[in-house]
């Protein structure tokens, strides 16, 4: 793993450059010194998060809007649609979910367009922990990930023991990815240490139970109020060991927006510059059509970089998006518009 070139990162020059080697904690021995320093205790963490440069809201919204006007056509559009399909975390998180619904969702994940078998498979399905056991046999041998929300989703308001038990329940049932929620109340109260410890504990539980279980940290940006908070929460989650930073639960409006995703993509980009590690981003909720999805892909390319255009590093948390992607894919390949009569509507 490459060591960071921290002075190359924007807004990082004022940080102390003393090369104090990290102590024995699990993560810091891979981190560059200023990041290792940030996680050494809560006051350092707070100083680090509040020392992050502020987000210019007008600027980030302007840039997001400007990039959203790019026109992607023909072969590029078809490639973008296929990439977007392969990035979908096909999601059902309803109280009314039944085993039958999860199985039909899994069938759709394997074959998004049964009439056109070359349509790519989605990246993962995302369900509640009690439905993981239903999804596992339905997806066996496909390579499609099984993501499960955990840690008292969607509010995150429970004890650490319950959150860890929830995580364990999901992983033992066969989840390969865990979508945890942060404690927004603690974050907004400035109790960053608590949030960090909870993410790190869930991270440790994932590592203990299943090697390679990927942890998505849901920031629920709709409740964080400001872009500055989104940036702080993104760094907090990255420092604590989240593989993904995810915008939303999908239960709160606004869910994913382009400017918020910009801020999070900047965070993973800067993380890569400073640590050499590639972390992933997942916008979730509110992305319903192909046009929106392609706008996100343009943002990924321009803000994070071309190497993030990969299902390992970028996902869409969505349910109805896949229908529209499949319809638009048909429109591209068949030369005329398709309709909902021709795709499965879940």
């Amino acid at each position, binding site marked *: 793993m490459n060591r960071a070139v921290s002075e190359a990162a924007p807004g990082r020059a004022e940080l102390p450059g003393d090369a104090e080697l990290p102590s024995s904690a699990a993560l810091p021995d891979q981190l560059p010194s200023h990041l290792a320093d940030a996680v050494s205790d809560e006051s350092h963490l707070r100083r680090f998060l509040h020392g992050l440069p502020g987000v210019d809201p007008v600027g980030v919204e302007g840039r997001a809007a400007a990039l959203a006007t790019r026109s992607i056509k023909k072969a590029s559009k078809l490639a973008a649609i296929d990439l977007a399909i392969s990035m979908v975390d096909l999601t059902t998180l309803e109280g009314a979910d039944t085993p039958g619904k999860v199985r039909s969702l899994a069938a759709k994940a394997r074959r998004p367009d049964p009439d056109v078998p070359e349509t790519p498979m989605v990246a993962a399905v995302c369900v509640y922990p009690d439905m993981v056991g239903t999804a596992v046999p339905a997806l066996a041998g496909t390579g499609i990930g099984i993501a499960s929300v955990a840690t008292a989703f969607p509010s995150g308001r429970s004890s650490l023991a319950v959150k860890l038990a929830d995580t364990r329940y999901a992983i033992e049932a066969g989840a390969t990815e865990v979508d945890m929620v942060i404690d927004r109340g603690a974050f907004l109260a400035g109790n960053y240490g608590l949030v960090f410890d909870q993410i790190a504990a869930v991270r440790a539980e994932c590592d203990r139970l299943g090697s390679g279980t990927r942890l998505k940290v849901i920031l629920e940006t709709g409740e964080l109020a400001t872009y500055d908070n989104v940036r702080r929460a993104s760094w907090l989650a990255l420092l604590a060991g989240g593989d993904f930073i995810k915008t939303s639960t999908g239960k709160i409006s606004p869910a994913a927006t382009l400017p918020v995703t910009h801020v999070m993509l900047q965070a993973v980009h800067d993380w890569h510059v400073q640590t050499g590690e590639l972390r992933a981003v997942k916008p979730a909720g509110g992305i319903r059509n192909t046009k929106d999805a392609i706008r996100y892909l343009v943002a990924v390319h321009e803000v994070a970089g071309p190497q993030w255009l990969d299902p390992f590093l970028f996902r869409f948390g969505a349910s109805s998006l896949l229908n529209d992607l499949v319809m638009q894919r*048909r429109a591209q390949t068949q*030369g*005329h*518009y*398709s*309709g*909902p*009569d*021709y795709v499965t509507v879940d």
Partner: protein
Amino acid sequence: MAAKDSGRAAAGERVAVAKTYKLFIGGAFPRSESGRTYQVTDAKGGFAANAAQGSRKDARDAVVAARKAFGTWAGSTAYNRGQVIYRIAEMLEGRRAQFVELVTAGEGLTTSTAAAAVDAAIDRLVHYAGWTDKIASVLGSANPVAGPYFSFSTPEPTGVVAAAAPQDDSFLGLVSVIAPIITSGNTAVVVSSAARPLPAIAFAEVLATADLPAGVVNLLTGDAAEIMPHLAAHGDVNALDLTGCDAELRAALERAAAGTVKRVFAGRQPNFTAPPGTARLRAFLETKTVWHPTGAVALSGGGSY
């Protein structure tokens, strides 16, 4: 608009306001996605107004709006649909003079002929307003079957209908095309006459204020030969009305429609003044047949096929 002449006469120096009209999609009046406009001339070749030139993507947006409106419109009661269509006739009656003026200028008719056409269009709406709650009883049936069952065939709206309005008869023809489509609960995407779109746009302004739910009628101005092929091949359009297309275009559209097995109404109609039959109504209906066991109390076995 044609009002410029009277305005000039009254004020001497007044410069007439040249209007640029827009499309009517989903209850709103957007510009064409393509940004294109074209000049509309009156029957004598003078400038009348600018109209938006609808494109493929406008047609796509209109289909989305029509599909969204279909459930509510088809699900509303026949009585309610009749009231709404009657309300359109009421609104037109109030703006009768404007339409007479538009038709006179656009088609080069005498005022009395144009007035007769506008009156006929209003009467046609009243006619179809009366049809809404009679379709099932007139066009449906109770079928004699060889078994202890009631069997009813009942007509249902087919869905989204894409129509090309007549090129010459710009108002009465337009109303005669739209009214039977929406009477039975379908929603419509209509491409107006290319050379004479102004009565269609004025009619859109009437529809927008006449209790008609947004998206039930969507009006595109522009070239039917450019827009209709995309609608004919569209997977989310259920039927086509080719009234305003010439023979060559009809053939091409019918071929394009075959790929998605659309209902196609290709009836030519040179003259809209004659009383309408039921051909246009029947063209956009599907028949559902329901079987139910006879007997005072049916305990089981009911179902629809």
